[in-house]
């Protein structure tokens, strides 16, 4: 199991959807942290607290983007444990995983 603390290992100010939007975008978080962890290790704990807020475009690209890349929704739901004081964040992320459509489909 691996733990990713967003505020410490990525940024306290994550923002933007794509890498061209900035260095701490959703795409960047997905590419640098989520994808390598999911390909290498069974389970991930993501600590979302400590950040000065998340934009929905960041969350959608980071987590919904995993489904578009080909990760299975059920695998993501079982492998990723989201930790946050604000339940709205975990609910919103799970909605993005659920609603995302695989690109190849």
């Amino acid at each position, binding site marked *: 199991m691996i733990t990713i603390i967003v505020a410490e290992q990525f940024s306290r100010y994550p923002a933007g959807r794509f890498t061209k939007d900035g260095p701490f975008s959703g795409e960047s978080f997905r590419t640098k942290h989520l994808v390598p962890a999911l390909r290498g290790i069974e389970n991930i704990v993501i600590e979302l607290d400590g950040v000065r*807020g998340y*934009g929905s475009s960041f969350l*959608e690209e980071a987590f919904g983007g995993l489904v578009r890349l080909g990760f299975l929704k059920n695998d993501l739901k079982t492998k990723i444990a989201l930790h946050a004081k604000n339940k709205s964040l975990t609910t919103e992320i799970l909605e993005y995983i659920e609603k995302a459509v695989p690109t190849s489909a």
Partner: protein
Amino acid sequence: MSISSEITWLLVVAGWGLTHVFSEARERRKEMRAQLDKLYELLFAIEKDARSFHRSECFDIVKASELILKLNTFERILTRILFVDNFIQNIIQLRRSITLYNFDLSIFSQQALDCDILHKIISACEDFEDAIEQYYLRKYPHTFPYIRFWLDQK
């Protein structure tokens, strides 16, 4: 001490107790109203800033960052005042209406007054205000005893 004087004392204590409880309830209601009014000020500021951001001619990274900070602050304050589980969908609706579309440098474009994004922002703010007021009215009804002591959280 006679039975009649015991009853008198009992009535006095019970009366004092009831007065205290309703006085506390009234104070709590006033406190809650004041806290909610401040929360609404922040909500209206977020709405105004969000509309201004999406109506801008060019992408403003400072305004975008401030909006995310304000949304985060709004949720933190809401958590302190109310049972936040009742408002999770409202929080998501609000954040999404402002920050899901047209919120990034690479895709930003100036929005028209009657565009879907602005409409969704206004709706999200109105829905949020309505949901909070409904909760407040359930907790502090207009009729006697003016408070529900054991309000179900859902």
